[in-house]
């Protein structure tokens, strides 16, 4: 069997050099890990440019690079909504409004903040679901990497799994969160430098942006959409039927832009942990704001290749093809690797592939570091072994890394065997995550919200999300994993994405209402003094005016939002 891409000796040399280097960084950090704070929070001593790049890089794993290029081919420039609406505003909100409570409370994790603000059961619920979720995400990353290498290069599946898992295991065990963060930053530059020439060559090959626009007209009209659908992000959002995503602007703005995006960027410990490692309150607040600048430019590196690829595939003279998946359609997940193979000669090809592998591994490493922290502080220290020495928890962190990686390997094989169970699990996680932002919003801005309210708000909202999913279906699907499993279908959505967005909206609203009602119906337990530093109205304002303007979160936030608005208008 032949494989689409062949790496040369030079490519393997670069690959080995890079991963040797990654292990070396872990090794060099090892003797600096003196206590649990060093291991789990990098001693809260990382400069802001590093935490900022790690903040977006932790999210730049498998799903991002491969998935966004695939969406670029399937939906065109509309995919940028996942960045310009679905990430940037939430990142600004985190930096300006929420970081003071996360960082100022000195909580060591997001679940721990919930414990301080609400109560033990709310923390327990969040910690447990988060721990399970990180293991599965890390397993999926591992599985996707091994599968990709098997298909493209003919590498043995087991070999890829064990080597990647071993590299991640070693460098996190040695250097903890610092090691993960340093490698995430290194990986960020690898992705940028590895993929930028690809975009440049691809764009040149199709004849520039306006020629690409012209070529994409055919892609849109072939599928019976208006000519500009692939190159205009907002003009075709009046109704779900007029764009390939199958969503209308309101569902997109509320479901993706508000609920899902704020739920992920503002409450997911995987990303928040990076900001918590910053060396000062000011640096912690600026972390997501600094991250927002490269984030708003990522569409040009990850979405544009997908758009170029679909134009090339349609043009029979281009000589560029995509592998065909089982159902006969082009496999869009192969866009980035196939373009690397198409345009880059040996040497640069090695650089591109190293970047791709690094992004999978650092996606996995991000999950493992978030897991070992939540496990050690929020589960082990809280329920199994409170009051042990700090050295004991450092030891536990290393041990948790080992079994976290082993469980990820297990999850990867599980994904390989039972693909649909993985789909099901991701669905469950969506139910669990959707309401979280309502809990945090009430927690941080309404002092009357209490533990019972938060806990039951979350529980009923997860249930409401599941119910909504069970009673609705995307158009053209049969009842089952896609929804409608409760027997009756009360509403049919034009597409899966619209259904997801509305599931999120309903979960969030339920959580908001139930938390308020239950909080008002039950007694307030925590006093104003308990909540100082945890709730907006009970926390002294931060003295911001003494900093120069470019260090002030509010000003930076405004600049970020203005720049994002301009991008939206340019590509509207």
């Amino acid at each position, binding site marked *: 069997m032949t494989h689409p891409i062949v790496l040369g000796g*030079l490519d393997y*040399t*670069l690959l080995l*050099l*890079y991963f040797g*280097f990654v292990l*070396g*960084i872990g090794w*060099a*950090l090892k003797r*600096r890990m003196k206590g649990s704070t060093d291991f789990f929070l*990098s*001693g809260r*001593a*990382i400069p802001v440019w*590093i935490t900022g790049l790690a903040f977006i890089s932790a999210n730049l794993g498998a799903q991002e690079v491969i998935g966004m290029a695939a969406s670029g081919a399937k939906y065109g420039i509309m995919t940028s909504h996942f960045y310009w609406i679905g990430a940037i505003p939430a990142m600004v909100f985190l930096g300006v409004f929420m970081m003071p409570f996360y960082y100022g409370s000195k909580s060591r994790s997001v679940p721990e903040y919930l414990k301080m603000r609400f109560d033990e059961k709310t923390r327990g619920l969040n910690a447990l679901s988060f721990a399970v979720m990180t293991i599965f995400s890390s397993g999926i990353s591992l599985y996707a990497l091994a599968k990709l290498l098997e298909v493209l290069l003919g590498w043995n599946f087991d070999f890829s799994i064990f080597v990647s898992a071993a590299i991640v295991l070693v460098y996190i065990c040695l250097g903890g969160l*610092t090691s993960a963060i*340093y490698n995430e*930053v*290194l990986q960020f*530059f690898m992705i940028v*430098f590895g993929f930028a*020439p690809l975009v440049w*060559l691809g764009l*040149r*090959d199709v004849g520039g942006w306006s020629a690409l626009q012209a070529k994409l007209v055919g892609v849109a009209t072939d599928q019976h959409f208006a000519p500009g659908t692939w190159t205009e992000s907002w003009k075709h959002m009046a109704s779900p039927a007029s764009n390939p995503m199958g969503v209308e602007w309101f569902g997109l703005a509320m479901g993706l832009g508000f609920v899902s995006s704020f739920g992920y960027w503002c409450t997911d410990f995987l990303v928040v942990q990076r900001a918590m490692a910053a060396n000062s309150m000011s640096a912690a607040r600026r972390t997501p704001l600094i991250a927002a600048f490269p984030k708003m430019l990522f569409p040009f590196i990850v979405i544009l290749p997908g758009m170029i690829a679909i134009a090339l595939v349609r043009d029979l003279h281009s000589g560029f093809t995509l592998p065909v998946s089982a159902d006969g359609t082009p496999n869009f997940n192969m866009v980035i690797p196939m373009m690397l193979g*198409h*345009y*880059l*000669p*040996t*040497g*640069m090809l090695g*650089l591109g592939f190293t970047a791709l592998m690094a992004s999978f591994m650092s996606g996995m490493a991000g999950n493992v570091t978030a897991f070992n922290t939540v496990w050690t502080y929020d589960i082990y220290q809280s329920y199994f072994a409170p009051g042990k020495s700090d050295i004991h928890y450092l030891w536990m962190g290393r041990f948790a890394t080992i079994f976290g990686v082993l469980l990820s390997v297990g999850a990867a094989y599980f994904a390989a065997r039972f693909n649909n169970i993985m789909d099901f699990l991701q669905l469950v996680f969506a139910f669990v995550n959707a309401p979280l932002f309502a809990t945090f919003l009430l927690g941080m801005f309404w002092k009357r919200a209490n533990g019972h309210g938060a806990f039951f708000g979350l529980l009923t909202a997860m249930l409401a999300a599941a119910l909504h999913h069970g009673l609705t279906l995307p158009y053209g699907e049969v009842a089952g994993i896609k929804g409608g499993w409760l027997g009756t279908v009360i509403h049919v959505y034009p597409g899966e994405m619209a259904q997801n967005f509305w599931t999120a909206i309903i979960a969030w609203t339920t959580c908001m209402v139930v938390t308020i009602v239950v909080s008002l119906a039950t007694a307030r337990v925590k006093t104003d003094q308990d909540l100082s530093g945890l709730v907006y109205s009970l926390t002294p304002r931060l003295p911001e005016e003494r900093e120069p303007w470019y260090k002030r979160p509010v000003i930076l936030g405004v600049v970020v939002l203005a720049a994002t608005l301009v991008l939206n208008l340019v590509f509207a």
Partner: protein
Amino acid sequence: MNFDLRFPIGIIFSLFGAILATYGLVSDPAIYQRSLGFNVNLDWGLVLLAFGLVMLRLALRARRRK
């Protein structure tokens, strides 16, 4: 505390840049047909090298100031 990350970044990118640029000088020009005739190993290798050296310089300067 933690060491300056600009050192490892500077080292790896200078190294990668130097390797790619050198290979670009000695390799058979025919392999650049796929990259539309551009010797990407040489050109981009020099970019990586420059980036790596800037990072190293910044790191050294910060260390001297301490």
